[in-house]
């Protein structure tokens, strides 16, 4: 199994570590382990961890990685775990220059994990917890049987993306407006205003008061919806309210924990990969590279930065954006004066010699995630330089094509695709729908329809956990639609939104 570094590589690690510190990177202790390509594929299939709970999809992942490597299509260079200490892997067969590059890249990631706000609430002992999860699931497998446990995991994974991405950062205070309304409704029961006490029996006869009281009571009852507010964390709602066996509760909570652990990595992919690439390139070209390694380094680096027309490469987009920010803050290309300058030549020659670039990027890596990063720093000039465009599918020609290069549209499309990982936002709105213990979800439609066959299969899985009919309100072709699965049949009807 994994080996520690050879003296030669340990010396290189110390060297790179020194450069990383010199440049001001700040990271947890980082442990490098040496693995064979087989082990690398395994660890990668497990999402970077040495141990995961038993499940066939790791095997599927592993097969695909192993095949990709065999056919020379892909090769995993780096794997880092957000943990304290960080763990990272080096592949035995790689040449020395690659190992140096990977180490430099890894220190970039570790710095990001430690400092970016999105990771503040992540579990830094995840490596232990993952192992615990594995033990717990194995124990259930022994007790309940592999088929049943795996089947439950399959169905739960189908709902894995239904968590509240921002939950760790949100404090939910009681809603002040609601409290006020409630107070008002209590007042109303006191009846009309009475100026002369002897008139009371006439103005507010007791029958009238009783009916008023009853009405208020009913209203209150109705307002006590379940859940009181729409709940984004569907998994949590199921944990609390679905009629699950103890072992199911345990497994569901394991999967939910893991989903939350991975969420920030999805929210900062462009920043994080860009940051690590920025640092490997800085450390390598300014310090670590030897003359005879330059070409191999350049070959590898340019391989990582390669772009395909129909995809965003987070490494490439990220590193370019970091460099652009550094350059702009070095030259003072920001603020009112810059924004208002529309002389193209002046803009090009702009250099206030501020030299604040490095400081700025360190600050940015702390307080932003991909969405705010792109929203704040992706400028029209940058989009043009990087040749960004929006593409879409042309049904008539049955092919993908470039739709637009207009900056606003590019940026909006990019932001939409990052919102909630580019996945639909879905909430529990009623756990007692139609007063029949049915579950009602709502999809916050943002212009894109759900993939129909997948939605139906997912409902089927949801139903098997909820054990009563389940429903989701969404929109197809602009029309409100209620999809329903009652345990036997799917149905669909139009509804008013």
């Amino acid at each position, binding site marked *: 199994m994994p080996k520690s570094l050879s003296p030669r590589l340990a010396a290189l690690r110390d060297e790179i570590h020194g450069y990383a510190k010199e440049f001001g990177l700040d990271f947890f202790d980082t442990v490098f382990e040496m693995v064979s390509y*087989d082990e690398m594929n*395994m660890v*990668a*299939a*497990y*999402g970077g961890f040495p141990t995961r709970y*038993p499940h*066939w*999809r*790791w*095997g*599927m992942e*592993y*097969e*695909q990685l192993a095949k990709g490597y065999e056919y020379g299509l892909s090769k995993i260079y780096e794997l880092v775990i957000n943990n304290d200490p960080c763990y990272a892997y080096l592949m035995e067969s790689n040449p020395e220059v690659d190992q140096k590059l990977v180490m430099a890249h890894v220190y970039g990631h570790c710095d990001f994990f430690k400092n970016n706000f999105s990771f503040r609430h992540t579990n830094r002992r995840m490596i232990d917890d993952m192992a615990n999860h594995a033990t717990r699931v194995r124990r259930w497998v022994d007790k309940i049987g592999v088929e049943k446990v795996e089947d439950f995991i399959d169905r739960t994974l*189908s709902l*894995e*993306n239904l968590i509240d991405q921002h939950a760790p950062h949100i404090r939910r205070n009681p809603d002040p407006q609601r409290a006020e309304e409630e107070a008002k409704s209590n007042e109303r029961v006191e009846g009309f205003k009475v100026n002369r006490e002897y008139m009371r029996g006439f103005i507010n006869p007791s029958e009238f008061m009783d009916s008023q009281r009853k009405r208020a009571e009913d209203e209150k009852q109705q307002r006590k919806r379940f859940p009181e507010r729409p709940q984004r964390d569907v998994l949590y709602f199921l944990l609390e309210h679905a009629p699950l066996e103890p072992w199911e509760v345990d497994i569901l909570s394991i999967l939910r924990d893991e989903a939350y652990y*991975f*969420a920030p*990595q*999805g929210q900062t*992919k462009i920043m994080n990969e860009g940051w690590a690439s920025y640092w490997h390139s800085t450390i390598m070209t300014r310090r670590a590279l030897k003359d005879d390694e330059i*070409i*191999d380094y350049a*070959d590898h680096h340019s391989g990582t930065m390669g*772009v*395909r*027309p*129909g*995809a*965003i490469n987070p490494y490439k987009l990220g590193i370019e954006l970091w460099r652009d920010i550094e350059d702009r803050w070095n030259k003072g290309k920001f603020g009112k004066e810059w924004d208002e300058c529309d002389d193209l030549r002046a803009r090009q020659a702009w250099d206030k010699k501020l030299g604040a670039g490095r400081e700025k990027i360190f600050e940015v890596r702390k307080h932003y995630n991909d969405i705010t990063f792109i929203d704040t720093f992706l400028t029209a000039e940058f989009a043009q330089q990087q040749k960004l*465009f*929006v*593409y879409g*599918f*042309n049904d008539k*020609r049955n*092919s*993908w*094509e*470039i*739709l637009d*290069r207009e900056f606003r549209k*590019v940026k909006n499309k*990019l932001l939409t*695709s*990052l919102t909630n*990982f*580019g*996945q639909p936002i879905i909430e529990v709105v009623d756990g007692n729908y139609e007063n029949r213990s049915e579950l009602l979800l709502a*999809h916050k439609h943002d212009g894109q*329809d*759900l*993939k129909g*066959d*997948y939605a139906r299969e*997912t409902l089927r*899985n949801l139903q098997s956990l909820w054990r009563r009919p389940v429903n*989701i309100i969404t929109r197809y072709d602009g029309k409100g639609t209620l999809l329903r699965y009652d345990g036997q049949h799917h149905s669909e009807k139009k509804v008013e939104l």
Partner: protein
Amino acid sequence: MTLKIHQDHSRFKQIVRGKIKANLRKYVQKGEMLGKKGKDAISIPIPFIDIPRFKYGHKEQGGVGQGDGEVGQQLGPGAVEPGDGHQAGQGEGDHALEVDVTLEELAQILGEELQLPRIERRQNERIVTQKVKYTGVNTTGPESLRHFKRTFKQALKRQIATGTYDPKMPVIIPTREDRRYRSYKLQELPETNAVIIYMMDVSGSMGDEQKEIVRIESFWLDTWLKHQYKGLESRYIIHDAVAREVDRDTFFHTRESGGTMISSAYKLCRDIIQADYPKSAWNIYPFHFSDGDNWSADDTRQCIEMLRNDILPQVNQFAYGQVESPYGSGQFIKDLREAVGDTNNVALSEIADKDAIYASIKDFLGKGR
């Protein structure tokens, strides 16, 4: 060394296998796999091996890309990655529903599902063949094996080192010393050899549908026998009133209009065996397909004689498949059944339509010969 993941891996394979098994009859009958065959694997569409989620259809969604091109320009095939544009750090995306299964595995599944016995080898002599394995990079070699990327990289290194590289005019000219070649080793592999001799009636009464059945059936026979013998050869004979040897493609696509003399094919089969496949070194499998119509009772007599005297003593198993056609009388299988039906190494099968292929494969391979 065993990795922990091997459990998950074999579980995954088991699931795939289960899905294939459950659908095997359909795959066998439809013959849809024939078109998806690669060199030694076949890609099989598996329903719902991926995990369904609430998500957007990628086609409706579109995305942001990077690169040159005018608005309206098409992106080339493969430019757009299917599935979610942006993914969580788990490397988990859309999984292709097509699963690659090696022919080896497919044969195993076929064997399990049809409960085919392993073939008892008659000949166990090991015949050694050589296999080329590319192992590394060398400074000498034939031009056809030149490693272009390595060569150019080497040249670039040299030019930079000697100061002859000009970034403004990045021209790289490899010299003799820069050239790099893939190098290989010969590996010796022991093999047990076997030959299948396919014979088919291509006279007017054998229509396209009948030939399709033969084609599908022979795919499965091939797959199974290849699983049993590493060094498998195939020969193809077509016949109407006369027989000739052809290549595989011709075999499946020829249609003649003449009469039928089955004996001509058997004669050629006998000659091929005598000339190329001594019994001492080869496991031999003649498969004959026709619609059961023969020219005359006399010709049928000749066939049986040849089978008895020349072919059956030489071969592991002789198999005859009779494909039902509206024109054929279907007499031939009755004659064979009467004459050699109880001989050990004869397998006879009637194939009414595509649905019957499944059972017919079992007829042919079920005896383990």
